[in-house]
């Protein structure tokens, strides 16, 4: 990947390089030759593109939330207020169905997850070459636009959920009560060594599956867009259009699933059979 002019060349000249270029982050602290982190987990590395795009999108949500929330018209809701009212009411209804007692945090948490993940996923529908090409012209060598095609973004969300699961469990059952769920579940207290392993796997699988599901779906979607971009230009429209239409469903569904599972996972803290 030493040749940074790949984006400027016709894509079909060197497909492998083209794809790899698209899958390389704008990175602080990466290896200067490979432009990659040194291992699966490497905290000396910071992906600027993922962080900036998600930050901008968070800013968009904040701006809209602030503007709509400031000028709510109780009698004659219009435009965005309608949309957000429907979303708020929908999420609130879902939280109220699942939670046995009122919870201040989970409603706005779910709404935020849905909006943010949806917007981050939506970046996938911007033509794959557009932003990287513009930024390349401006002197930025690599730029991966869709934050949710990065494990950091998806695990950032799912680990936050994991922390909230633990907090809610400890608050609801007490620290000892929470530890007991590891000891006495699912086989009774006398099988505690097995129980610890099984419950640990069960608990860790929650954030892991949340993060990986979103990452996998979006990464695959992005990759397919890149592959479609490798076709000759006259053959791109039909598969590109079809995949984009299908992807609208995927990104919405993934945002919804992430929100739903987060709410459900946190609500499990309030169920007695554990």
């Amino acid at each position: 990947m030493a040749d940074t002019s790949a984006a400027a060349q016709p894509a079909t000249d060197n497909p492998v390089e083209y794809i790899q270029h698209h899958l390389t982050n704008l990175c602080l602290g990466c290896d200067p030759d490979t432009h990659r982190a040194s291992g699966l987990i490497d905290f000396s590395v910071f992906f600027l593109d993922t962080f900036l795009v998600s930050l901008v999108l968070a800013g968009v949500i904040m701006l809209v939330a602030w503007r709509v929330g400031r000028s709510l018209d109780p009698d004659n809701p219009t435009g965005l207020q309608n949309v957000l009212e429907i979303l708020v009411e929908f999420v609130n209804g879902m939280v109220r169905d699942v939670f046995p007692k009122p919870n201040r945090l989970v409603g706005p948490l779910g709404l935020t997850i849905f909006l943010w993940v949806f917007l981050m996923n939506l970046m996938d529908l911007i033509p794959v070459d557009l932003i990287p090409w513009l930024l390349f012209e401006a002197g930025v060598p690599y730029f991966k636009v869709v934050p949710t095609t990065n494990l950091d973004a998806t695990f950032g969300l799912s680990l936050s959920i994991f922390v909230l699961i633990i907090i809610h469990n400890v608050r609801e059952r007490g620290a000892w009560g929470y530890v007991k769920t590891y000891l006495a579940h699912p086989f009774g207290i006398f099988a505690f060594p097995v129980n610890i392993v099984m419950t640990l796997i069960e608990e860790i699988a929650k954030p892991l599956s949340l993060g990986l599901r979103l990452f996998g779906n979006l990464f695959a979607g992005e990759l397919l867009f890149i592959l479609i971009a490798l076709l000759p230009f006259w053959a791109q429209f039909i598969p590109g259009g079809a995949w984009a239409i299908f992807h609208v469903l995927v990104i919405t569904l993934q945002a919804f699933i992430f929100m739903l599972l987060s709410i459900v996972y946190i609500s499990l803290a309030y169920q007695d059979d554990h």
Partner: protein
Amino acid sequence: MNVTATLFGQMGTFLVLVLFVMKFLWKPVLNALEDRRTRIAEGLAAAERGHEEQARAEERAAEVLKDAREQASEILAQAQRRGAEIVEESKAAARGEGERLLVAARAEIDHESLQAREALRKEVGRIALAGAERLLRREVDAGQHAELLGQLAEEL
């Protein structure tokens, strides 16, 4: 495909975003929805009250109308009765007046016939006197015989 320090950036952004959405969007929108729900319920209750009031008012109006109708028919009956009375009264008055006129007329007639009779008597007396004068061919002292003639005239 790595987990890097970006993770913490993402988690921080997420935390701030959730708190922001909670404060500036979630709570105001829920409040607005609750507010609207309350006001719709109030409006429906007010409409219900209005309906009841209208029904009551209609009832009252019907009652008033019935009363008025009864009063009107009563007044009408009274007026008719009074009218009949007045007719009767005026009939009686007319009858009385007629009788009075009749009596007066009769008295007048009596009076006039009396006068005529008197005049006639006088005339007859004068004629008789003239006749007697002519018969006797002499002057009768009118003064001497006036009493006699008066008696004669009264006998006629």
